[in-house]
């Protein structure tokens, strides 16, 4: 298999696995945020902020994928 193919698989794994990890992390935070908001809508801002924090992991995965593909 040419090296470009392996790099593409690596890049895909970097984004994909990071996405799964972030999803697992977000499920409890998201559920808690929705729960808190259902009782008191004032929690919307805090809930949203907390829910997106694990998204940063996907950004790291994306950066790794870019590094693999273009550098």
């Amino acid at each position, binding site marked *: 298999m040419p090296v470009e193919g392996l790099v593409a698989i690596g890049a895909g794994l970097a984004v994909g696995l990071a996405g799964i990890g972030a999803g697992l992390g977000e499920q409890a935070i*998201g559920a808690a945020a929705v*729960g*808190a908001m259902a009782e008191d809508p004032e929690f919307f801002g805090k809930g949203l902020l907390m829910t997106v924090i694990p998204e940063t992991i996907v950004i790291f995965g994306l950066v790794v994928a870019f590094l693999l593909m273009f550098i």
Partner: protein
Amino acid sequence: MALLRRISTKPAEWAYIVARVRVMSRKLIPREDYNKLLNMDIHEIARYLEESEYKREIDELAYKYSGMDLVDYALSLNLSRTYSKLIRISKGVPRQLIVQYLRRYDFWNLKNIIRGKMFGFPREEVEATLVIAGEYDEQFYRALMAKETIEDIVKTFEGKPFYPILDKLVKACPLAEFEDELDKFYYQSLTSISPETIDMKYFLEFIRMEIDIKNIKTILRLKTEGAEMDEIVPKIVPGGYQLKEDVARRLAAMELDELMKSLEGFWFHEAIKDVLREPLSRIEVYFDRMWAQKVVSKSHHFPLSILPVLSYMLLKKIEVDNLRILARGKAEGLPTEAIKEQLVIV
């Protein structure tokens, strides 16, 4: 596959219900407000409730009742609705455990209906005591209250696991004994749950500790009244955490002073170590307060478990009881200090 399901759903189902009860707990009456409430009369208390989480119930019932009756009905209705809401908004293991815990209100309601029927209390009075949060709904209880005799009420439960206890009541079993048997049945059905998961373990530990508190209060109350060991032992609920049946039996055989000293070493001793000479009613309040504090503190240690939910349910019940004591005390014209002594302020 099971592991995947565990990873994918378990934290979410706990996080959702725990977040909701945490927000609901913030809406409980703050401890500072009890001082304000103590200086109010019954109508002011009703008005205070109208501006709180009890607004809906007070508004709904105000056209029909006033004063103590209004507060009484509104508190029961609010408690029923709060507990039913917890069942509605939970799913999976949390829901199972909440439903199991709330079955106590099925027995509570049944006891009240039978007691009402036996002593001929007006139907409205019995209805005010019902907390519709367990297996059966309002219509079921209305139909039950409409039955002519206790035998008819008992027949409704034919085939249920607790039917033999009810059947015994019809065959001239004393009411107190029947009520103790139902309590025992309820706690036995809970403690027989096998602690397969950590969630079940926390739940069982809570129930066992609750049994301890119930048993020690029973022993102290009966001892103060001068009851003998033979009278106390049948009232002990088996399955306690530290206060197992044999230990409870040993305590029941002691004199009151000796018994108080022997409580050292039990987890609930810290509640009463400085108040051993106070009257029993005060000691019971200390037990309740310490129990609630213990559950609240445990719920902080294990946040993604049933404990925050149980802690909320306990605090809500304490709040309703406190408001009822306050309202009734004020309606009867009791001195503020006497009312304050009966409040469990956590």
